């Protein structure tokens, strides 16, 4: 069974909820229209289509657009050696979707990381704590409106975090510049 066939089976099962499979560089991606159905889709993908390995869950901040969040599930069928990607959009007001932890137990830390970095919550997660930043940190630092240098916060009894000095940065490389001067890291502040 190919990844395309799996995507078509998903479409056949869930009808209009699952969009047409898009192919990019040999990889198949489907978009799920309703984020609150992700747990059922995941259950079907694992138990009927054989996607027994959750490679990763990642999230995208489409800052300034609506819906703001895109959550991406990377699935793998180890027996058939195929991969499938499922994308679903979540609005900023909602910022919550069902956990797929009952389907793949490895989703535990992936979902915690997304909660920590992006602030998207997963309903039904048994232990939705921060995983990288410390408990009590007030921001979600991977959001596009969070400055690279950080914001001042208080780490009780230990340290006060100031914005990191960027010394004129951030220093950004531009792909496809004509010569090495055009490509090398330069001060390119998007806020200016």
């Amino acid at each position, binding site marked *: 069974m190919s990844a395309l066939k799996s995507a078509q089976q998903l479409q056949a099962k869930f009808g209009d909820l699952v969009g047409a499979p898009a192919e990019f560089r040999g990889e198949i991606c489907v978009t799920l229209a309703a984020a609150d159905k992700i747990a059922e889709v995941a259950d079907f993908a694992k138990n009927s289509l054989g996607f027994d390995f959750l490679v990763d869950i990642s999230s995208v901040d489409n800052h300034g657009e609506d819906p703001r969040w895109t959550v991406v599930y990377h699935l793998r069928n180890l027996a058939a050696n195929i991969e499938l990607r499922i994308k679903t959009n979540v609005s900023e007001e909602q910022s919550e979707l069902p956990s797929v932890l009952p389907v793949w137990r490895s989703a535990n830390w992936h979902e915690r990381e997304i909660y920590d970095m992006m602030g998207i919550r997963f309903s039904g997660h048994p232990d939705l704590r921060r995983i*990288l930043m410390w408990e009590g940190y007030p921001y979600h630092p991977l959001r596009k409106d969070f*400055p*690279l240098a950080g914001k001042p916060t208080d780490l009780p*009894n230990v340290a006060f975090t100031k914005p990191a000095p960027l010394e004129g940065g951030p220093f950004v490389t531009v792909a496809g510049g004509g010569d090495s001067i055009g490509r090398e890291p330069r001060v390119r502040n998007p806020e200016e």
Partner: protein
Amino acid sequence: MQTKSDYAYDSKIEGDVIVTRVDAALNWFRANSVWPMPMGLACCAIELMAAGASRFDISRFGSEVMRFSPRQADCMIVAGTVTYKMAGVLKRIYDQMPEPKWVIAMGACASTGGMYRSYAVLQGVDNIVPVDLYISGCPPRPEAVLDALMKLQAKIITQPCLQDLNIIKTLAGQTQN
């Protein structure tokens, strides 16, 4: 086998007694038995391991006893990137070390935050603990660690050991009266 040396202490000439100050003797002990607490947090810790292994051999300076318990250590070598999340742990470990204690910030990250100009990284470990020596490099070579250790020994030797203690001051005051 004859072990006589013209340079070393010779009890036949100088007798069985050495006269020195308690301060100097204690500092001499301290400087030559600095037990490090290897606070290995990133790649600098690999170079610290090399400094402890046979090729560079930190035991020539009396510091081969790496203590992973802070209660048995004299000198915390902060080797690596200190994130804010780890900062609390580091401070707690430092607080558990008995006096006298020293801190070496090893490498760019521990000294200044290094290349990590970011919301997650403490910009220099001297924000939370007092640092005696900074080692430059990313990561520094083991020779640099040994150099820092020798500089720390030189610093320990010059530090007042007993004469600042209140009991000594009181006794000295009594003898003057």
